[in-house]
């Protein structure tokens, strides 16, 4: 799924931010201490393999809290749950359900990956008692009133899956050894960024920091993951806290993972439009 291209200022979906972030970071999770990470002089292929070995399980759920602070420091807090499942063709289905605050509780979004690369979206707004399909070829702009754009989420989902990914070499961030990886979106991509610099932790193979540049040297956003506290689920591991800072808007969004479970038994029926309609009926 490729989402988030070209247009910087747009109305957008507010609901898919968190699941994609979580899944994105989980995507890079590594199998704890059981699988040794490649050394500091690892090649790009070795780093990609390190991340690829640690895909999350086919189904699971995550509960998390989002704190979005605007430029004046005013913080809004929301709580949500994501359930995901991969079908037989390895296409993802994701359901996000907001549980707090009360006025938005029950808002839900179903995202169904399609072979075409254009995912299908179904939205449930409890105040309307109905489910609507959202037609859009591209998702853009900030999501969930947060500082993540759909392009950011797309990058997070597949941080190592870029044709133009380039290994710049080892480095150090906040005392931790990292590999520095760079992508430079071509003008045809319509990206809001000219350069993306990803710092991958050499111990956990997790993205520790991602710098998103609006121009060659103008930093627009910075994503930081805290590796001091990790959530382990089976062989997967992900940071419990991460933060996106938008230097242009002067705002920041903190995400805190409160629960992370792999649940291979999650039934496929939960990931359908009918399931959202049934929730309306209830």
């Amino acid at each position, binding site marked *: 799924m490729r989402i988030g291209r070209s247009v910087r200022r747009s109305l957008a979906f507010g609901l898919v931010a968190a699941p994609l972030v979580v899944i994105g970071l989980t995507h890079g999770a590594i199998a704890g201490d059981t699988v040794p990470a490649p050394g500091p002089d690892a090649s790009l292929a070795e780093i990609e393999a390190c991340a690829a070995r640690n895909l999350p399980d086919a189904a699971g759920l995550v509960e998390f809290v989002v704190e979005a602070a605007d430029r004046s420091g005013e913080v809004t807090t929301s709580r949500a749950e994501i359930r995901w499942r991969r079908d037989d063709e390895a296409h993802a289905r994701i359901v996000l359900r907001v549980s707090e605050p009360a006025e938005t509780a029950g808002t839900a979004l179903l995202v169904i990956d399609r072979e075409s690369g254009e995912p299908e979206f179904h939205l449930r707004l409890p105040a309307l008692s109905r489910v609507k399909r959202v037609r859009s070829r591209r998702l853009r702009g*900030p999501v969930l009133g947060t500082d993540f754009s759909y392009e950011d989420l797309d990058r997070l989902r597949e941080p190592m899956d870029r044709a133009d990914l380039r290994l710049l070499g080892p480095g150090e961030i906040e005392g931790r050894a990292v590999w520095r990886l760079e992508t430079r979106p071509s003008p045809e991509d319509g990206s809001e960024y000219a350069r993306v610099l990803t710092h991958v932790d050499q111990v956990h193979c997790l993205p520790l920091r991602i710098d998103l540049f609006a121009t060659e040297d103008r930093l627009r956003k910075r994503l930081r993951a805290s590796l001091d506290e990790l959530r382990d689920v089976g062989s997967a591991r992900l940071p419990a806290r991460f933060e996106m800072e938008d230097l242009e808007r002067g705002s920041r969004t903190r995400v805190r993972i409160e629960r992370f479970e792999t649940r291979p038994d999650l039934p496929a029926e939960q990931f359908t439009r009918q399931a959202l309609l049934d929730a309306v009926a209830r």
Partner: protein
Amino acid sequence: MLPADDPSRRFYEELLARFGSDDRVVVSFRSDSLFTPEGVATLVRATRAVEGIPGVRSVEGLANAIRMRAIDGDVEIEGYLETLPSTRGEAEALRRALLVDPLRAGSFVSREGGATALLVTFERMPEQAFLESSLDLAVLEAARQAAPDMHVVLAGTPHVKAEVGRILAAELVRMVPVVFVLMGGLSCFFFRSLRIGLIPVAAVALGLVWTVGAMGWLGHDLNIVTTLIPPLVLVLGFAYATHVVASDRAHASAEEGLARVVFPVVFTAATTAAGFLSLLGNGLEVIRGFGLFAALATGATLVAALTLVPLLLVTVRRDGTSTPGAALERRFAHLAELDLRHARAILLGTASLAVLAGAAATRIEVNLPVIENFGPESRIRQAYAEVDRLYGGANQFFVMLQAEERGAFEQPAALREVAALQTWLEAQPEIGGTTSVVQYLEVLNEALGPEETPTRRIPDRADLVAQLLLFGANEELDVLLDRAHRVITILVRSTATETRQFDALARRIDARLAELPAGLRGHTTGNAILLTRAADRIARGQALSLLAAVGMIGLLLVAYFRSLRLGLLALVPNLLPVLFYFGLLGATGITLNNSTALMGSIVLGIAVDDTLHLLVEYRRGLAAHGDPAAAIREALPHVGRAITCTTVAVCAGLLVVGGSALRNQAEFGLLGAATLAIAWLVDVTVTPAMCVTWLRGARP
């Protein structure tokens, strides 16, 4: 420019803190072929070109605009230009769709559909940095290059400020040499000597270098007020130096000439500097800065007049030069006789004129012309007229509404208040359109709403509003709604351009905001509102400082005459030119602003200078002869050359400024010249008449 505790500044700071920079310009593209496949492609190209300019924070426009609508039970969210139109029919359909979108019609797209605009927001940066980078011109140039076949114009407060800065800088470079040459030439004529005539000019140049150097050394940039210090130095410095030169020419020895003039020159400078220093108590930092550097400038020109000038004069004396003829002195002797014969008539006539001037002065309005500052045919004036016509107003400001509770603007009742306020705002003649979160919600509600036949209206449930905003939160809403939904802004597009128009409009809006229900507070704010408040306070501050200076001069005159009565009487000829000046302002309809208010101080400085020299010579004559008439017969010819030379030269310099492309600069020059001529007339007629009528006992 406003102090930190000023309410207007506080609201503006809060606006910036919550919603970011409001330094925006409008780039308008007009073309008959705008809504054709080629025209739309050109527009996208222009948008990307402007977005790529360093210093541009964001660009809103058709190329980035999103359309939300209900289709067959689904909701479609797509960029208007997700797919560029490939036929004329598609382009025309795009135009029609835009004209019925309340978020786009009248803001991005002109109401008749023949033009579209980019709203360009700049990074927040110091005005000087903006000026040096010419970001506004870079935007205009990029847009024109990308759309060579379209009519492209630029409007907006940042552009106006930058344009004023560029014109002032260019005129400074062009006019200063002309003024120096002119004043030097006239000085040479009055003193019948090239070398002597250039001495006052040299003193002015030295005073200017010292003053501007001190400002630079102390890291003080020239601003809208301190930019008036160079002409102040020019006027005062020339007057002080000319008196020293004239006294030297009138006496046999250099020592005698200098000794004779030191007291009045120092006394004048001290009173003028004291007047400026009284500004240090002003609440505005720019006015305090002006007071400090104006006092410094007065001191610098005094030192130059009392050091450099005598030194140069000694050189001239050593080389031997001719002295000016006595023709002018003879004319002043005749004038003195005239004054003595018609003293009462002169005083009576002056009193009548003073009453008329006082009456006219009551009609003065405080106003800083912003767009009207440029000539009617200027590019910027025409651009504003076009943007006003197409989009309902080139100037933007905000009405900021604050509630006490988080989520307050999720309540339909609060949103209906906002809608009612917008309706009221749009009924004001100076307002062409408004935008708020209400329009976004109406569009979202229509696209997702519960009705089988969608209608555009405010949702009737708070939870639905919250859910729509969760779904529809975007960067366009960044300037309209905070994340806690407790503070919103209404973006107002206005055709008002002068600060008095903004002031009147803001007062009406404030009165309407006072009617908001309990729990809601509202304020007008934005760059244009701040400029209005600052201009108003600067002008009033300078006018008040004039009163302070008058008080200071009165005290010093009382001390000088050692008599309250004589001191106050001596104050009258100093005040008359100032009164006539304000009478001229009222009679001509020229408004009080930072430039015209400063001219009051300059007029007072010059009036004091000329009057003091005459009074000092008069008292000296009175002590020598004991007869007021004889004292005047001696004093007027003695100082006549200096005050005439000063007046003619300074008037000539100000007339050059009168040729400025900026209206308030031109008014500053022309009014200044007229008033200094009046001040001269007062000094050579009214002051002698007063001396022989009311100051007969002013013997030292």
